[in-house]
């Protein structure tokens, strides 16, 4: 063993490694504690009865225990909904991204950019409520069906929700395709459309894959919107039949689940959900590893030597398929823009009327419920969650981009765990927060618990977005700094990190967006009450949770108007955050160009 001196450099490195390894710890903790809490359920119900049973009737005492808790229909429901909505949403998103990057008129580009960012930030509960109050009544009218719960409604809304997320990441990776690929293909005589769809799009495939992974994660984990729209009936998924997903069942029943077996069974659903995510991530990691080097191992064809025979080639024009794709991307982008604008417009128009001074800032209590406590709770959660997540996230990102040996096993493992963490559904985080922070650490249900849980949720966002902007800092700048004799720590903090500042701020804003829109992870960790929080140890509902509260609580006057008003506030928040991002990015760009 070499003696490692306890220098500033080594200490810094150790700290960064620890931050990076934190993700591993977090994932293990989630898996372990969820398993720990589900063991009573598995033991009493039987693992296979639980997984493959087809009846879910926890309170039905006329059935034996082993037959009451079967989640097979929920698994089918989750899988089916994920596949349909990722397929639809993915197609919409990729074409939209292609349009924005390659076909969008210059003047329209910032508009689309803003639109996508704005819509990425809209809370899922708002989408769900839009589906509930606009889409489903519309479907009932169009299809003459008794009710519109089912795969179709859920898919439509969920795929719309996936578009901004998938599109913005696809867009980023398309934009990072080197210009000389594009020029090279054009120089061979390819048409623009051929170049875009056959050269640029494949060149960005890793980024697109990553976007789809995120889409899958979001679809599997989506809880609130899905719960509004699937209807949670005892059916297998079909276009117009109410069915269950794993997430919707957890959030649907957790409020009342308390007996010895019901709650453990719901946690066990969360555990199974987690296993799904782990498997998906492992598969994707394998896929990623395979395609990193060009060439396809599955369809490897040997090239025969021609032995000098010279054939005559006939050259002709191709590319009509790509022309169609081009037209398609115009149409889809327009469609997405219209739909997304409609959602925003619908909610704002319905909600603005309810925004009275008293509703926003009046005293909230037993006599009336206002949003004042929600503003405070939201601010408190954002503050604490970011204070925890930022150092960990930035530290981990620094390790990954500045210290890690690319491709080493440790880095691969860390990346796998960060991907896993970002794929963990927020409802599972909620379960973990409830079980671990709430019960095992004894924090209970309060804003502290909610903030801790959310800091875990936003951690991958902070890591990835910081890491991204760190890797975008050209190596030549690091070389310049090293060549002057600067130390690694100095290079990182003085040369590299300031350039990544806009990325870090973006990650902060993305995180704020995530926190503001989060509800599933908060309801059972921070609580849903209408009282002003007295500190981090009291319960408190953030804006999104308040929306859920208005919709679900009994005896609230004008609940629908209040829901829309809260939704309008949420959208305004997202709007403000986005303007902030744009202003900050512009400022940075101006500074660096001057």
């Amino acid at each position, binding site marked *: 063993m070499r003696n490692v001196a306890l220098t500033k450099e080594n200490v810094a490195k150790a700290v960064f490694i620890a931050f990076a390894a934190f993700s591993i710890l977090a994932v293990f903790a989630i898996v372990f504690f969820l398993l720990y809490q589900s063991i009573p359920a598995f033991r009493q119900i039987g693992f296979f009865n639980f997984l493959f049973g087809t009846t879910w009737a926890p309170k039905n005492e006329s059935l034996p225990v082993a037959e009451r808790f079967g989640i097979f229909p929920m698994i089918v429901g989750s899988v089916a909904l994920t596949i349909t909505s990722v397929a639809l949403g993915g197609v919409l998103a990729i074409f939209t991204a292609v349009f924005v990057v390659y076909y969008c008129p210059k003047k329209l580009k910032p508009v689309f950019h803003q639109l996508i960012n704005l819509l990425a930030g809209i809370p899922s509960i708002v989408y769900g409520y839009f589906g509930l109050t606009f889409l489903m009544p519309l479907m009932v009218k169009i299809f003459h069906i008794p009710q519109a719960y089912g795969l179709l409604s859920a898919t439509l809304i969920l795929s719309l929700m996936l578009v901004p997320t998938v599109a913005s990441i696809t867009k980023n990776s398309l934009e990072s395709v080197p210009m000389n690929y594009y020029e090279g293909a054009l120089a061979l005589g390819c048409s623009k459309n051929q170049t875009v769809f056959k050269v640029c799009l494949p060149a960005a495939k890793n980024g697109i894959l990553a976007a789809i992974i995120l889409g899958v994660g979001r679809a599997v984990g989506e809880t609130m919107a899905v719960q509004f729209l699937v209807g949670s009936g005892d059916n297998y998924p079909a276009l117009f039949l109410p069915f269950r997903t794993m997430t919707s069942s957890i959030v649907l029943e957790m409020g009342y689940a308390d007996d010895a077996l019901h709650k453990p069974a719901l946690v066990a659903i969360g555990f199974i959900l987690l296993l799904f995510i782990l498997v998906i991530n492992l598969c994707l990691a394998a896929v990623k590893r395979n395609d990193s080097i060009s060439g396809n191992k599955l369809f490897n064809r040997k090239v025969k030597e021609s032995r000098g025979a010279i054939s005559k080639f006939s050259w002709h024009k191709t590319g009509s398929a790509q022309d169609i794709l081009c037209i398609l991307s115009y149409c889809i982008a327009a469609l997405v823009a219209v739909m997304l604008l409609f959602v925003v417009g619908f909610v704002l128009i319905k909600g603005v009327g309810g925004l009275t001074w008293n509703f926003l800032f009046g005293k909230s209590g037993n006599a009336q419920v206002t949003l004042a406590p929600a503003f405070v709770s939201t601010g408190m959660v954002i503050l604490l969650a970011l204070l925890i997540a930022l150092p960990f996230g930035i530290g981990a990102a620094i390790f990954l981009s500045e210290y890690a*040996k690319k491709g080493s096993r440790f880095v691969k493992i860390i990346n796998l765990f960060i991907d896993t963490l970002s794929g963990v559904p927020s409802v599972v985080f909620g379960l973990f927060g409830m079980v671990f922070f709430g019960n095992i650490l004894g924090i209970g249900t309060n804003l502290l618990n909610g903030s801790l849980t959310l800091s875990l949720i936003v951690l991958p966002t902070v890591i990835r977005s910081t890491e991204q902007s760190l890797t975008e800092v*050209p190596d030549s*700048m690091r*070389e310049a700094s090293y*060549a*002057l*004799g*600067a130390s690694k720590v100095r290079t990182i903090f003085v040369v590299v990190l300031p350039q990544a500042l806009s990325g870090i701020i973006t990650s902060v804003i993305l995180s704020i967006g995530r926190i503001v829109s989060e509800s599933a992870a908060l309801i059972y960790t921070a609580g849903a009450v209408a009282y002003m929080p007295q500190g981090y140890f009291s319960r408190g509902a953030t804006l999104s949770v308040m929306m859920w509260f208005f919709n679900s609580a009994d005896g609230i006057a004008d609940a629908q108007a209040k829901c829309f008003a809260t939704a309008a506030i949420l959208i305004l928040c997202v709007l403000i955050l986005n303007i902030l991002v744009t202003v900050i990015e512009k400022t940075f760009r101006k500074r*660096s160009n001057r």
Partner: protein
Amino acid sequence: MKAIEKFEINGEYALTVENMNLWYGSFQALKGICMNFPKNNLTAMIGPSGCGKSTLIKSLNRMNDLVEGCRITGTIKVGDTDIYDKKCDLPRLRKNVGMVFQRPNPLAMSVYENIAYGPKTFGIKNRSMLDEIVERSLKGAAMWEEVKDRLNKSALGLSGGQQQRLCIARALSVEPQVLLMDEPTSALDPISTGKIEELCLELKKSMTVIMVTHNMQQAFRIADKTAYFLLGEMIEMADTSVIFSHPRDKRTDDYINGRFG
């Protein structure tokens, strides 16, 4: 804090390389290099792409440490100090053996901050001292007049030639004894190239300049000594006039007379 000292260069040579081999993984990029770089001279290294000249110049201030799987045997000395010795202080080495890269790489800071970065690294915080260093370095790189009114603007807004001279100024800011230049003009137009060549001639009065260049005319114009590299070996090193008129080795002759490369 401990002061960073200059290297003692007493003999004729500022830098000596003795029997040096370098591998990237299993690929041997440099084979048995032995050469001496005379003090206050401008030495040019020429050769076709992939011959190892850039690799060598990067080894001279250990920038190759950043490359994974890079392994070096043999000794490289600045004055009498072995720079690959465990006791050798890396910041000290790089402060005294500065480097200018192929592509201009200004930091994403203002012109002023770019120059002040190096001195700040070595503990100079006093504003008036920094001002003085910035002015002296920029004057040293013959660009003070051009940028004195835009010191607080971003360095990324300068033209390519200006950026490269800024990088030279930045290297000068820490008062190096040796300046390594890795094809400093390959990304620049002829006018900027001319300015930098003039600058090099000025610089070698006060320091040792070692330059990798692709451009034989450049070597011919400004170098005191020229070394020819091929396939990881140093074929020949001599006074520039000798190399270009009476090369000893046939391979050098082929290259210089354009029969190859």
